[in-house]
């Protein structure tokens, strides 16, 4: 089951440069929320703050309050623990090249100490079914390497890998931008189904995609959250002029 | 991980420590004069290392004199003149030369090179070039000339492969600029490539020198192992590395051992300086990571 995310006055820096200014928002459980905005507006940075990936970059830091469910992720929890409860899918599919499909999906579990063979197989199968990849790979789970699949399949593999550890939240950073339209479509379908069990935050520069898959949308500009509301409202009657300018294509 | 990295530092520390402490005895006994004295007399505990320094320097310089033109020629041929299909094979062949162990070079030198010198080359050299004073004396075969020649063969692969890397690093635009002026291929190479890669080539030569200075086995097997200084290249000699190799395990007294260690320390310092100089020179042309892979 998914949980809600409460963001309270979040700020983030790369060295001396401030990338996020005072972000506050509430992300609803079991819904998909899209983060849109022009290049460099801080959408990826924001999402990477939600699972504390931001700090893996040298000289980067974040401050503020982020609560995932009842977990205050910046106060008193180790980053590694946080990331175990939140799944992430990246822009360019990045399966582990030297591992089989099975091992890729099981990686998160195995490396966190989970070794029950039977349960592992069940989880792998369930995760691959959830990411709609099962039928295509069920016969070559251990034989084919993760990197031998097509782009779209690799991305679904990465989704399965993220789902296998049973996160409550799934963060997706422009998951379809490296994929062709058909694969994109499949993944968007996937997001629909996943919403029932997970909370999804998806960064996208494709506004049509946002309107297709997300119930809520946040518009970022220059590191600030300009507007956050139901998707239909953002795209039909936005409150802020800058939002309107962006979605009508006047910039970005 | 950090522990392993620290191990590396520790090892070099150990090396320096060992060399310095064990050579103390000799250092205290002879001081700087150690390197200028010509008397190497273990029986009377008189140690002067000048013959070895001389031998090392002369054999290395002789080796370079032969190896540099050859190495540059090979590098130029492989990089600029050779048909594509041949490149891989030739590059592989030169790498193979580098992989042959020193003792095998020595073995071949003793039984093939030395007889050749004794029977053919040395008499010929004595006849036509004896007037220089470099080729006089009985043609034993064994001696400085043999050592220089086998060292040259061993050093060519280093000079050639670094030179190749450095020549490849020169950007295409430089070559094209010269060609566009109507230059012949050789002129293009001379002006567009070699001149630009000058520092790196110099570095390659210095690296070759570094290798020659420290080379032990092959030299020991053919240089004659006599601590003498002679003008003729036919005469036997002795190098710093060779004396250590031959006499270390039989050094009966502490002073003897210490003298040998002191020679080792000197060898260490010289090779380190030479190698650092070479690295800096090569780096200045290839700017960091040398070109990986085949040329």
């Amino acid at each position, binding site marked *: 089951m998914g949980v809600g995310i409460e963001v309270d006055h979040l700020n983030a820096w790369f060295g001396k440069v401030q990338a996020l200014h005072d972000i506050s928002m509430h992300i609803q459980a079991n819904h998909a929320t899209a983060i849109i905005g022009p290049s460099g507006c801080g959408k990826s940075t924001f999402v990477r703050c939600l699972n504390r990936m931001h700090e893996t970059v040298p000289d980067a830091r974040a401050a503020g309050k982020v609560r995932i469910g009842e977990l205050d992720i910046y106060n008193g929890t180790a980053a590694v623990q946080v990331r175990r409860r939140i799944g992430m899918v990246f822009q360019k599919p990045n399966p582990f090249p030297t591992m089989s499909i099975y091992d890729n999906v099981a990686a998160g579990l195995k490396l966190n100490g989970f070794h029950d063979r039977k349960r592992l197989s069940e989880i792998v199968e369930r995760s691959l079914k959830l990411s709609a990849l099962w039928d295509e790979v069920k016969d070559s789970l251990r034989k084919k390497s993760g990197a031998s699949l097509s782009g779209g399949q690799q991305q679904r593999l990465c989704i399965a890998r993220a789902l296998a550890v049973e996160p409550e939240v799934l963060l997706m950073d422009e998951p379809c931008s490296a994929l062709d339209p058909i694969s994109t479509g499949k993944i968007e379908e996937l997001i629909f189904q996943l919403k029932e069990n997970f909370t999804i935050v998806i960064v996208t520069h494709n506004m049509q995609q946002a309107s297709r898959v997300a119930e809520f949308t946040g518009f970022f500009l220059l590191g600030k959250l300009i507007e956050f509301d139901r998707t239909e409202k953002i795209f039909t009657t936005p409150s802020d002029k800058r939002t309107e300018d962006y979605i009508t294509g006047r910039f970005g | 991980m950090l522990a392993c990295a620290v191990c590396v530092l520790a090892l070099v520390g150990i090396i320096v420590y060992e060399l310095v402490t064990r050579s103390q005895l000799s250092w205290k006994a002879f001081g700087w004069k150690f390197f200028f004295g010509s008397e190497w007399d273990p029986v009377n505990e008189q140690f002067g290392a000048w013959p070895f320094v001389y031998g090392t320097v002369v054999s290395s310089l002789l080796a370079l004199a032969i190896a540099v033109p050859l190495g540059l020629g090979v590098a130029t041929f492989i990089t600029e003149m050779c048909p594509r299909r041949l490149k891989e094979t030739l590059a592989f062949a030169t790498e193979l030369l580098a992989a042959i162990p020193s003792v095998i070079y020595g073995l071949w030198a003793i039984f093939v090179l030395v007889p050749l010198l004794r029977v053919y080359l040395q008499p010929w050299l004595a006849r036509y070039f004896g007037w220089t004073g470099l080729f006089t004396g009985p043609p034993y075969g064994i001696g400085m000339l043999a050592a220089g020649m086998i060292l040259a063969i061993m050093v060519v692969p280093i000079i050639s492969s670094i030179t190749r890397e450095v020549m490849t690093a020169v950007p295409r635009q430089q070559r094209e600029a010269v060609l566009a002026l109507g230059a012949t291929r050789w*002129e293009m190479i001379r002006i567009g490539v070699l001149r630009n890669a000058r520092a790196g080539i110099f570095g390659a030569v210095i690296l070759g020198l570094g290798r020659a200075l420290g080379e032990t086995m092959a030299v020991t097997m053919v240089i004659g192992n006599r601590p003498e200084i002679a003008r003729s290249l036919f005469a036997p000699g002795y190098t710093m590395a060779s004396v250590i190799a031959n006499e270390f395990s039989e050094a009966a007294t502490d002073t003897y051992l210490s003298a040998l260690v002191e020679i080792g320390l000197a060898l260490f310092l010289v090779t380190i300086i030479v190698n650092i100089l070479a690295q800096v020179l090569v780096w200045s042309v290839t700017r960091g990571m040398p070109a990986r892979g085949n040329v």
Partner: protein
Amino acid sequence: MSNSSQSEPIRISLWRSGMDHLVTLAAAAAVLLVLLPLGAIFAYLVYKGVGALNWDFLTQIPKPVGEPGGGMANAIAGSVLILAIASAMGVPIGIGAGIYLAEYGRNRMGDVVRFTADVLNGVPSIVVGIVAYGVVVLAQKHFSALAGGFALGMMMIPTITRATEEMLLLVPQAIREAAYGLGIARWRTTLSITLRTATSGVITGVMLAFARVAGETAPLLFTAFGNQYWNWKINQPTAALSLQVFTYAISPFDEWHRQAWAGALILIVLIVISVSALRVAAGRGMLKGTG
């Protein structure tokens, strides 16, 4: 370039084109001159080595001076023992240092370590022998395979460290991020994911180092020292193939000369196999399936 209309084609002076051809010839001659000894060495190794190679050679220990027959079996075994010790020391330290440099070493300390590894690489092999003598032989009061292994291990480290660092740096950052995203700790990621991806390249580096030290003689002269008999104890003097070839080559006995060639042949065969296997591995690609 301007075209002189219908007049004669621009001719390069005879001198310049002559120089061009001359230099090409000279370069080609250089190649031949260099390949000549290469061919000669291999030819002699085969010609003289095969003659002395027989089953006895591979299975027997040396006979006393003057008696025909005998072999280098103990030397081959000794080499294996010494190289095993060397690898046990050199491989873990080398890979560990390489991992440190690649993953945690983009700083001052890393530069120092890198520089030190290069210094270690340039130390003449005879000097390494002196140090191993001082550290191991003097402490144990006798020559040993352990001392020989220590010396060779020291020589393996810089090559392995360099190769490991380079291979790890080739692993795309995206792979590491995927692991972090799954909540895998940094050290775990480095060992189980990053290193695993670079495995074939690292192995290549190890083999390169191995091939380099397998033929070394100088560091063994007063560490392993050599032995006319079988020896499996690591703290006793041990025979080694390269040492044996050296001893036999400089001896005055013809029989031993013959055997030296045979020993050299075996040595070179083992090394060529490693170097060629290395090329094949490099050709097949260091990282499987990236991109």
